[in-house]
Structures are given as structure tokens and as C-alpha cells.
């Protein structure tokens, strides 16, 4: 029997509000396995809340209300618990995913053992070029090194849908190139990636399509103007808002 939404992370009629301010109003979203989708919005538009909501995170902060009519990954609902968690992973920005006192290799072992992917540790280490930092504790790593470890850990989970929150911010040019290539490779092996970044160059180079958060909706870039680049669309959509924010 074919399950509804197979090969796709789907969220329908998602509404998010913070202290009464609507961030998304019954917006719909889908991410097919095998595609890399960019998510673009200035700060304060609730993109992190949206990504967390896809990972089925509950929000303990006061005033935050998240409601989905329906969310599923390959037909698996969040109520399926572990099965959904194995399918969808949210990687927070910075070092939040990691344990400062733990070594890099212990992170990978812990994730490998928890997600059942221990056999792939060596492969991920090679692909992400982190073999020289395996025995270092995360607190001793630079931001860029910690970001590499966080990305390696996310890849190691084997989750079909990766929700990456500003994953390239601290990386140098060489590692940005490396992880662009890895993300494309992951997509080719059937994994879906939602990538949020303020580095619009990342979005335009690695993503198959781009979504913009605007006025409570998720707007497809291609639907707005096929001939405009990500940077140009960003300026068109948010220029006024950024000016307002700057003035205030």
C-alpha cells in the first residue's frame, strides 16, 4: 500500500505566532527527497521556529504558538515518535547540537550508536575531513571546526530530511565548497535538505529552489520572478523591512 506523501516531507497549514504576531498563517511546505531547498528571510521572521516545527519540536517559550494541520515525512507522522525522529533532523546554528566537554570521536560514536549508523563513522570522517580533530574536545575547537563536526554529526544520523540552520556561517571558503558538494551528493542519494542561510550565495549555488518567508506565507522564488537572482529577490522582498528595522 502506498503511503500518503511518500518520498516527501510535508507540512500543511502550518501557523506560527509569537506573542500574538503571526509569522506563518496556514502556510504549506514540501521537501522532496533528492532536492535541496533554500529558505530565506531576514532575522526575526521565524525561520528557526518553522524549521523546529518541522522537526516536531515543542516550544516551551511563552507566547509561541505552533499549529500544523498535518505534517509527515514519507508518510510517517510525528506521533510515530522514533520513526519520525529517524527521518527528520534539525541541526541548530552554531555549537548548540554539540557537547563542549565531549571529544569529536565520542560525539560520532554516540550519534552512530543512537541512530544505528556506527559503521559509517569512518566514511563520514573521511568525507568531512575531520580526522585530525577526532580526539579534541568540542570546547577546544574554533567555531568553524565545531561547525564541521556538527555537520558531520548531522550527516551521520542518516536522517532522510536534514533541516540545516545556518550551517555554513563559520566555515572557510574551502569547507563551504566541500559541504556544498556533500549536500549535493546527499541529495543525489535521495536525501532532502532544507537549508537556511543568510549567505545568499550558498542558497543560489547549492539549492534547487528557494522559499521566502513573507507576510505569513512561504513564497516560492520561481513563482515570484524566474529571471531574478536570489540576491535580487531578497532585496525586492525585504528592502523596505530592513530599512524600517534600521530606522527603529
Amino acid at each position, binding site marked *: 500500500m502506498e503511503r500518503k506523501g511518500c518520498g516527501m516531507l510535508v507540512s500543511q497549514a502550518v501557523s506560527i505566532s509569537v506573542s500574538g504576531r503571526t509569522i506563518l498563517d496556514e502556510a504549506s511546505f514540501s521537501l522532496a527527497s533528492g532536492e535541496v531547498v533554500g529558505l530565506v528571510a531576514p532575522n526575526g521572521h521565524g525561520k528557526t521556529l518553522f524549521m523546529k516545527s518541522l522537526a516536531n519540536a515543542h516550544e516551551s517559550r511563552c507566547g509561541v504558538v505552533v499549529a500544523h494541520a498535518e505534517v509527515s515525512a514519507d508518510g510517517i507522522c510525528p506521533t510515530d515518535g522514533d520513526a519520525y525522529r529517524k527521518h527528520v533532523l534539525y541541526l541548530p546554528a552554531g555549537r548548540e547540537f554539540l557537547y563542549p566537554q565531549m571529544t569529536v570521536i565520542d560525539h560520532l560514536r554516540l550519534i552512530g*550508536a543512537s541512530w544505528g549508523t556506527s559503521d559509517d563513522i569512518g566514511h563520514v570522517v573521511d568525507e568531512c575531513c575531520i580526522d585530525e580533530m577526532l580526539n579534541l574536545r568540542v570546547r577546544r575547537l574554533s567555531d568553524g571546526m565545531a561547525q564541521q563536526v556538527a555537520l558531520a554529526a548531522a550527516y551521520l544520523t*542518516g536522517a532522510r530530511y536534514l533541516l540545516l540552520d545556518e550551517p555554513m556561517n563559520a566555515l572557510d571558503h574551502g569547507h563551504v565548497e566541500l559541504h556544498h558538494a556533500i549536500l549535493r551528493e546527499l541529495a543525489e542519494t535521495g*536525501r532532502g535538505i532544507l537549508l537556511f542561510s543568510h549567505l545568499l550565495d550558498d542558497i543560489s549555488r547549492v539549492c534547487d529552489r528557494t522559499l521566502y518567508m513573507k507576510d505569513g506565507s512561504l513564497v516560492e522564488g520561481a513563482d515570484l520572478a524566474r529571471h531574478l537572482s536570489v540576491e535580487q529577490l531578497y532585496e525586492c522582498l525585504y528592502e523596505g523591512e530592513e530599512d524600517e528595522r534600521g530606522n527603529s
Partner: protein
Amino acid sequence: MLAAGKRESGSWLEVLRLLLKYAVTRPLLLATAAVLAVLLGLGSVIAMPTMNAEPMNLALEYLPSLREQVESGMYDSAPEDLRESTTEELAALERMSSAADESETIRAYERYLELLQGDYDAGYINGGQRWGAHEQAELSFYQALSSIDKPEVYASTTDEPALYRLSSALASVPGVVWALPAVVSAVEIAGLRRRGRALVQAPGGVRLLWAELLSAWLAAVLAGVLSWLPTLLVSGARAGFGDPRYPVVFVWAGQVVQTTVLETVTRTFAMQAVGALLVVAVCELVGRCLPSLRLASFVAGVSLLLASTTATGLAATPAKASASPFALAPFPYLIVSEIARYPESVFFSESIVVAGTTFEKGMWVLTLWSAAVVVALAVVIRRRTSVCL
């Protein structure tokens, strides 16, 4: 790169190993073990007088006046059996006073107590006062002590051999302080599930819970054992390991109970280990039900403090003949030394504990309460499908 969906079920033993490695290397847990070690080890380093020799000293203090009474003919008109026993008592005390070694002193005192028991039974003491359980416990203690290879009563804590000192030191640690490593390791492990961290999103549900519980528990037990080592090593180097058969005698619900110093240490270990499991499980449950780790740590700390106060309050009520319903609650067993006992037990009047408590019942009660909390945890985990990121 990894293909999506290529995975086996997680290895929870490996997760357990990694979590345990993490927990036992936390500075706060090691610091807690160090504080406990200092509390336990003080008596091994600093000589503190004990009350252990007091009963024999009191008897020796009585010797001159007894001698004077006998010599003055005070007992000449007494019944023959009293006259005979008094003469023998005087002889026993004289042997105590001139004894060449401590074993002779102890044997003489044991004989003195036996004679005294006869006086009690015959109604010659204090207007017919009977030989009570406490007196019998004291006699049993010296009888048992005489039967070991090198009987000795230690006048100072630095004279006490390792096993004896440890048993005694464990009882000197106040209230539920012994449970601090369990609280600390549970909080450290719970910290791995702080907002955004990797394990928050890990699949594994109840299996991950086992790994977390077991790692926190094993780390707490290891920290506890670690805190015992300085006492064992210092006292061991000074006075040897000691005879594991050294008697521990006490009165429990009106009955004299005789055991050994090894058994009290073993019982203390067993009860602290099971108690630590309950403490870890409660901390985990509190941590899962409250949104912030700080709040959870605060609530867990206050709960333990309340448990300690309740246990102390309950223990302040002298034991009654009938079993108290509190004997089925975990609190009375958290004051472990009151249940497992300690070498000096014999010198105190009847144990002040909740009626109906025993070591065996304590093990069952703590185990069943732990199991109940773990079941509650499993239910919480199964019912919760969302995570806090």
C-alpha cells in the same frame, strides 16, 4: 556519503558506555566524591576519641568501691549466691585491671557481664530490674568479640582498622549526603538532553532511557565507591584491614541482632546502591517533566532534602510494636546507616527507626519504588512525541 535509511537499530550498550564515560569524567561529580571522601576519611587522619571503651572503663572505675564493699563485709549477710557472684565479679574486675593484653581485658569483662546477668535474673539489681535487651546486646557483643582472633576495642578512630573505620565513618555522614553523587550524575546526564543538543532528537525512546538511567546510576555508584577508597587506604595502612568478623550487635524491635562489620559495610553498599537508583530515577522523572534543567535540579534537590527531613522526623519517633505504614515508604531507608547499622550500634539504646523496617524490606521497598518511577518515566516518554529544541 551515507544513503538515507541505511541504518540498523542503535546499540544501547555503546550509548551506555559513552554516557558512563561522560558522567564519570564530570568535574562536579568528582568534586562531590572528593567532598564525601574527606567527610569519610577525617577519622582516619585525625585521631578522635571514641566511646567504645567507656563501658569497660566504667566497670574498672567501680572496682575500688566493690573491693571496699567486699572487704568491709557488706555482703556477709547477703544470700550465698549473691555473695559468690559478687566475689567472682570482683575477681573478674581485678583480672581486667591487671590484664596483660586487651583480649584478656575483654574476656574478663565478658565474664563480669555474665555474672551481672545472673544478679539481674535473681532480682538483686535495682529493686528487681530485669536483664534487658540492651544489656543482652552488650554481653553478646563481648562474647562475639572474645571469639575472634585478636579482640580489640578501639579508643581512637586512627586505631581502627580499615573495614571497621569505613563502617563507622559511613554512619557518621549526615542524613542523605551519601546520595549527592546520584543527584549530581543524574543532573549531568540530564544535561545531555538540554535544548538543542544531539540526544534530544535521538531515536531510541525507552532504550535510550535505560542507557541514561544506568549510566547515571553506575556513575553514582562508582563515585560512591571512589569516596570510600581514601578511608580504606589510610586506615588500612595505619591499622590493617581488620577482621571482617568483628561483631556488630544491636537491638532491633526488642530483639538482639548480631552481625559482622563486613556485613554492615556490604549492607550499606547494597542499600546505597539501590537508593541511588531511586534517586537517579526520581531526578530523571523530574527532569523529563519540567521544562528547564535548573528548575529540575532545584526541585530534585528540594525533594531529597524533604525526603531527608521526613526520614529524620520519622526516625525521631521511637519504634512501636506494630509496623508503621511508613515502613513501605522509601524515606526511612534513605537514612541507610540506621538500617544497615554500624560498629558502635551496641553502645546506643534501642535503634530509633520506623517500626517494621528491616534491611531486607528496605531493599525490596527501594527496588519496587525505583521500578515504579522507571515505569512512570517510560509512560512519560512513550506519550511524548515532540521534543524540546
